[in-house]
């Protein structure tokens, strides 16, 4: 037997050279650190809005004392990563070619990703408004057709079979085991 595997081929690849790893890594670091810090600050402010002493509790049984502690830990580590990433980024950002962000995002497959998120968001919005099994079949067919990498007919056949199989399985689960369907 001769198994052949074609590894991942990201869509729209090769439109821009890959950015130097150090600069890209530091960008990830400071972006991630900033996000974590924002979350920590939000939860810290939320924690502080609940009084730490009241007729019902003292400071150490306060409902938000643990959350405040965790927000401080998250914020401290987040700021650490943010500062570290920012320092390296400042030193190395000039090594990146102009317009690399767009190229990197395209190489990552942002277009396909957004299309996927969009289709799923529409599917979620349809839940509860149209019969679940119909929505499931529509999702499978739409994704199959949108992301196909060959002629339409075989994809339609595969997606159709998949939709019917899933509908049958879910209907059986619902009837036999009483599984709730949206």
């Amino acid at each position, binding site marked *: *037997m001769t198994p052949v595997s074609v590894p991942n081929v990201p869509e729209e690849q090769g439109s821009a050279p890959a950015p130097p790893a150090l600069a890209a890594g530091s960008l990830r670091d400071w972006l991630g650190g900033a996000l974590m810090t924002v979350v920590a600050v939000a939860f810290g402010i939320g924690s502080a809005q609940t009084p730490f002493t009241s007729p019902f509790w003292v400071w150490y049984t306060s*409902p938000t004392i643990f959350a405040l502690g965790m927000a401080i830990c998250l914020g401290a580590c987040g700021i650490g990563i943010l500062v570290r990433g920012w320092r390296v980024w400042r030193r190395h950002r000039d090594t990146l070619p102009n317009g690399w962000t767009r190229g990197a995002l395209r190489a990552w497959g942002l277009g396909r990703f957004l299309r996927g998120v969009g289709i799923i968001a529409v599917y979620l919005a349809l839940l509860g408004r149209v019969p679940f099994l119909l929505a499931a079949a529509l999702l499978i067919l739409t994704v199959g057709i949108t992301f196909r990498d060959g002629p339409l007919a075989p994809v339609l056949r*595969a997606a159709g079979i998949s939709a019917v199989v899933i509908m049958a399985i879910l209907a059986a689960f619902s009837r036999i085991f009483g599984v709730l369907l949206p």
Partner: protein
Amino acid sequence: MDLLSIFTGLWRLLLDPVSILFVVIGAQAGILFGMMPGLTTTTALSLLTGLTFTLSPANAIAVIVGAYVGSVTGGSRSAILVNIPGTPAQAAVCLDGYPLALQGNAARAIGLSVTASTLGTLFGFVMLALFTPVLGALALKFGTWEFFWLAVLGVVVAGTLTAPQDPVKGWLSGFLGLLLATVGQDGIHAVPRFTLNWTDLSGGFALIPVMIGAYGVPEVLGALRKQERMVIQTKLDRVVPRFREVMAHRWHILRSGVIGLIIGIIPGVGSDTASWLSYFAAKRSSKTPEAFGHGSIEGLIAAETGDNACVGGDIIPVLTFAIPGSAPAAVLLAAMTIHNLRPGPMLVIEQPEVVGQIIAISLVATLAVFILSLLWVRQMVRVLLIPRHVLMPAVFVICVTGCYALSGRLFDVYVMFVFGLVGVLLQELEYPIAPFVLGFILGPMAEDNLRRALVLTAGDATPFFTRPISLVLVVLLLLSVLGPTRLGQWVQRRLTGRRKSA
């Protein structure tokens, strides 16, 4: 709990064909999930937890444990045949499994990997049967202070081990999980926290939607994002391995089994670490290390045994301390809680027959997976031919059903999707998911025990550092935090230098 409980559980199970049928269904579903690249054991278990919600506790656990064993074993198919691991744990299997397939030995590789998996799983479960009573007795000595440290230690160790290059990112991921676990009413005063006056959020985020979201949705979106084509020929010859060939590797199997078991017991670290460590240990001790990576049977067997022995190790802390050894074990913990089986020290004392039954289910599941894995090889590999962009939306539909089935709220489905996007973001920013999920699971345990302990001592935190077991846990925590730092590495270098000079 003693061996009698296990035999009683086994006997009861063997007399109940319906439970055995559920074990077999779970095992088959697990194999199929495991062999599909991108679908992890955690996703499989999370989905099945939702779908088996209406079953009796024994049957639901039978399906979930069957799927657990099946998916860990099933992942080697795609690793061997198309060089893409079915689950992350099988990445090490690709190194030698795929070259073996290229040499025309695919059937032999599959047969040996299934056998090694079965032996590893059996080793793990035998140790589970032996260690659970011992650890259960030890767990009774743990007070609220120790349980707080145990939860924190679990998250920190998971962070350190899943992000070895940058442990701070692992800890950050864990802290985020711990923080998000506080959303909803608090456990003591029922005061709503961070709910934005949203009624749906008053109960917090449910575990299963969070887990399916964090693990399943990024896989679905990732498969849509990348264009992937797999071409595979399903022609296979003799799959069942020869007894003599298996016995020739008994020491690799035993060593990898021990490594897998120990890794499994450590909270937050899963089969993938066990698999790699077993692989490297086998390479180091091999007479032909140069063959590793070029179709070494030793490497294949070591990796497979290690990742499967981990399953038993993962379940031990779930049953004794209610602390999951890995993400799939966390789903098992959640499933047990949903079905009113309260894992922890008291389970071993009060309901030893439940523990016995779980061990019995595990043993039957191992046997079922072994038979099914060798029986349907040719038919099952055809599943790999289904295009990903057709398979993944179907998986997403099952994810939605799994989330909705638990409480009948569309809100949980939306939570799943939002946490899925959070999972994608964490992955792209190179934050490990496992500590995040573990933090989310252990958050309530850490918070409740911290506040309860402080109530018991009227705000005095001294017992956290003076009680003997607490002190040991604090020292372990400090070692875990300081180990990867420059100070820790300097101490390690000094110790290694001293040992060399001695």
